[in-house]
Structures are given as structure tokens and as C-alpha cells.
């Protein structure tokens, strides 16, 4: 009763303020968590160490690295480059493989998912084959690709594709089967052809399924590219990891993983944007502050 100063847009102002407050809180908590992780990592690799053998530390930095060491490794990579050349070049190579593999995998996954989701016979016949392919160890596929496609970008992209494809495929497939039958019926009555049905009903309805799979699958694309490089390559972050492992350089391994982490975060932010853009029609059910 006290809050009756009915400004026309006090709702918007209050919303914006709450949003700002919340954002700040989230950023602070994220940062605090990062500080906690890095701090305790650094601590435990420094505490209790005596003598020349680092094994006496609570956590042995020989195996698990040390944030400070990781940082200086990163600095040295930036300043002096890596064994295979400048750092940005490695990142560019890996990123190219990842993005290509991601794009191809997602597109194939959606096409197959929608096709098999809409056609029962096709899915019954091909289903077992797809499941079998999904159970093939990627590391073995990696060597097969390296043989069949060579050591250039193709084999890494192929590996990324096979990791991405299945995640997207199974989600798109299920998303198609979850489409509300009433909506399908309505669209058909309104005159939708099979392809219009896909475009106007099935894809929008399966969109949240497909988008959900993108979160996992970008990570997998990155993993595919890295593993491919790890198995044989001239350049790339995977090779940096392999080299660091080969030289007992745990800090190098974790520094390379840190770079991957940054890439993953950037990609995730982009996917989130895409998501918000594509499904802005949705009442955000469970996260609506009113319903929580």
C-alpha cells in the first residue's frame, strides 16, 4: 500500500534494477569461485613441500601443475611463441577445425535427426546402425580418419564431426518426435506441405532440443579437434598438449587447457545469444521469478 507512486514505467525501472543487482551478484559469485579454485590449487601445491622432491607437497605440482606456473607458461607462449610457432596460429588452426567440425556436425545432425524423426521406417531401419556408429571409440576412429583423410585439417574436422553429430542427432530426433500432435494437425489442416510442416512446425518446436544439444556439442567439437591433433598434426593446441605431456610439463598441459576454456566460454556466450534470439517467444517457465 505504501508503494503506490504509480509511475508509468516503474515496472520497467524495478525490473532493470533487479536485473542489474542480480547480474552483479552472479559476476561476484563466479569470480569468487574462480579465486577459490585457483587459490586452493596454488596453496595445496605449495604447502608442505620440503626437500627437492615436489611429491612431499599436498598436491604434487609435477602432475597437477600450479596456477602461477601455468600463468608464466601462458606468458612465455604469448611472448616467445610455442614450439610449433606463434600462439595465435595454434589457436587459429584449432579454432578452424573446431568451427568447421561443429558446423558440419550440427547440420548433419539436424538433417538426419529431422529425417529419421519424421520417417518411422527410416528410423527403424537406420536406428541400430546409428547407435553402433555412436559406440565406436573416437580415438580409434581418429586413427582411421588419419589414415583415410591424412594428417591435414580433414581428419580433425571429421573427428569433431563424429563427436558433434550424435549429440545433435539424438536430440533433433527426439525433438521431432515430441512435437505437439495438435499443432501438427493444425498445420496440416491449414495447408502445410511436408516441407512446410518441417519449417513452420517441426523445426521451431524441436528448436529448444537442438539448441540444448549445441551446448554439449561445441565442447565436443573442441575435444574432437584436439584429439585429432593429438593423434598427429603439424600445428594446433592439441599438439601443444601432446608436446607438453611429452616433456613432463604439467603446467604446459594446463595452460593449453586454459586456452581451450577461454574458447569454450566465448563459444558458449555466442550460443546463448543465438538461443535467446531464436526462442524469444517462450515464457521462461521455471526461471520466471514469479513462479519460483
Amino acid at each position, binding site marked *: 500500500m505504501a508503494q503506490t507512486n504509480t509511475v508509468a514505467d516503474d515496472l520497467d525501472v524495478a525490473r532493470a534494477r533487479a536485473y542489474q543487482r542480480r547480474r552483479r551478484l552472479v559476476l561476484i559469485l563466479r569470480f569468487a569461485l574462480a579465486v577459490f579454485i585457483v587459490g586452493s590449487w596454488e596453496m595445496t601445491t605449495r604447502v608442505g613441500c620440503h626437500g627437492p622432491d615436489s611429491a612431499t607437497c599436498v598436491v604434487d605440482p609435477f602432475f597437477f601443475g600450479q596456477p602461477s606456473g601455468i600463468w608464466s607458461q601462458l606468458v612465455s607462449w604469448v611472448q616467445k611463441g610455442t614450439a610449433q610457432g606463434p600462439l595465435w596460429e595454434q589457436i587459429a588452426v584449432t579454432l578452424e577445425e573446431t568451427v568447421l567440425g561443429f558446423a558440419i556436425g550440427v547440420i548433419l545432425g539436424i538433417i538426419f535427426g529431422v529425417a529419421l524423426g519424421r520417417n518411422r521406417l527410416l528410423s527403424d531401419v537406420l536406428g541400430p546402425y546409428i547407435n553402433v556408429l555412436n559406440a565406436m571409440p573416437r580415438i580409434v576412429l581418429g586413427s582411421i580418419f588419419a589414415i583415410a583423410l591424412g594428417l591435414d585439417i580433414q581428419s580433425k574436422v571429421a573427428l569433431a564431426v563424429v563427436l558433434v553429430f550424435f549429440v545433435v542427432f539424438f536430440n533433433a530426433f527426439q525433438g521431432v518426435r515430441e512435437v505437439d500432435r495438435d499443432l501438427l494437425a*493444425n498445420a496440416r489442416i*491449414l495447408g502445410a506441405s511436408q516441407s512446410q510442416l518441417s519449417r513452420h512446425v517441426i523445426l521451431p518446436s524441436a528448436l529448444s532440443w537442438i539448441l540444448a544439444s549445441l551446448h554439449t556439442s561445441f565442447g565436443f567439437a573442441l575435444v574432437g579437434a584436439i584429439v585429432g591433433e593429438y593423434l598427429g598434426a603439424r600445428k594446433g593446441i592439441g599438439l601443444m598438449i601432446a608436446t607438453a605431456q611429452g616433456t613432463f610439463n604439467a603446467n604446459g598441459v594446463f595452460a593449453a587447457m586454459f586456452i581451450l576454456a577461454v574458447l569454450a566460454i566465448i563459444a558458449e556466450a555466442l550460443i546463448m545469444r543465438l538461443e535467446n534470439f531464436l526462442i524469444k517467444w517462450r515464457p521462461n517457465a521455471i526461471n520466471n521469478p514469479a513462479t519460483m
Partner: protein
Amino acid sequence: MREADAKGPAIELRGVTKRFVSPSGKSFTALRDLDLTVAAGEFCAVVGPTGCGKSTTLALISGLEPPSVGTIRVFGEPVRSVGRSVGYVFQRDAVFPWKSVLDNVAMGPRLRGADTEKANIQAREWIARVGLAGFELYYPHQLSGGMRKRVALAQTLINQPRILLMDEPFSALDVQTRALMENELLELWASTGASVVFVTHDLEEAIGLADRVVVITAGPGTVKGTYRVDLPRPRNIAEVRFQPRFIEIYEEIWKDLRDEVLVSYERSKHLVAS
């Protein structure tokens, strides 16, 4: 009515039985031996107790569900799948949640090949007709129940279908809006000469709108009776119900209908006692 003689019936159901698999695995008969003929250009209302198979009948005519036994013809052709000449306002509105009101309404023309601009102009017109002007950009979840229902109406009517199936289209509307919509519908019907099958639980509405009222029985639905409504057209919905002939027809049908409803209700009461 003239068209009817020339072309034969628009919709023809012959000995149609529809069974579903019930949860216990046995077959459940929703419709039994249903015969129904709707002439071209005829406005046919269907009434019956809840759960008697009215919606199922519409689904069969539309081609969305196949009959278990019997034949269904639309314009003389057996129904095999969904035809383009049919419009169907579902009982539970099935508007597309990812499309705005405008896009929802414009969908029919666009699916049928109209270009976006034309479709939008047409859609805006229909949105206004159902009283939703100003809400073009809203998404369905931002609308009230009655508003959603009107979007569904506009979405179907914009296609001007030759066969129009309507499943309780006005039940979520207040009396006044309903009357406005009913008049819009009659106007549209008069201008396009569509054959309408109109399901409602409001007998007044049925008589006010239709040329013929079909009463479906409870339990496995079948036709209990067919009543010709010989009120003159054009009718004004708000006034027609005060005519003596209207009241006569009403009482005649009402007797039939009430019996059926009681049968259906008593039956279920009995079931629980046993």
C-alpha cells in the same frame, strides 16, 4: 442449397465406427454406426453429451483420424488424408506458440503460397474482425484464453475453407463477444457457401446458427435424431432466439438431448456403485 442438388452431399459418413485402444488394452468404441450427410452449403450443428464422440467425428471428417469401420466421403471422394478444402477450429486451441498473433493468422495464406505482404494485410483484417487489433505482435502465451481462441478462429476463417469444422469455437467467449463472432460467422458462411459442421454444447447457439441440428447419443455415439431448423435467413443471433418457432424447436430437441445426457451421467454413477 441449390449447389447441393448439383453436386451431391459435401460430407457423407456411412456406417462409421471408431474404436480406440483403452488403457486396459481392450477396444473402446467411441462412435458406432454413425450416418451423417451434410449437403454443400449446409450449416449443420452437432450437439450431444460430453464425451459422446463429437470431436472424434470432426477428426474423422478432417482426415486426421481414420475410421475403424465405414466410409467417409468429402465431395464424393473417400477421405484418405487431410484435404486442402477443410478448415478445422480445434476444441483446444492449437495456435503456434512460437508465432505472433499476426504470423499465426497469416499462416494459412502463406502456406498456400501467398506472399508475406499480402498475407499480412489479409491477416490484419481478420485480426480486427475477431476483435484483436492491437495485439498483432503478442505471442499466444501473452493472451487470455478467449483471445487465443479468437486467434484460432481467424487462423481458420482466413482460408475461407469449403468445409468448415468447428469444435466449440465460442465456448470461451462472453455472451456479447460470442454474438458478434456468431454474426461474423454467418456473414462469412453466407458469402462463401461453405459446408459447416459446428459442434457446440449450447443448444440455443446450435439452433440459432444451423440449418440442421444433429443430436448424438451418449456412450458409443450415433445419431439419435436430426432436426431441420426452418427459421428464415438472414438471422440475427441476438433476436432469433425470441421467435416462437425457435422455442418450439428448442424444446423438441432439448427433450432428446436431456435424455442422452442423463443416460451418460447415470451410467457412470452406476459404474462406480458396482
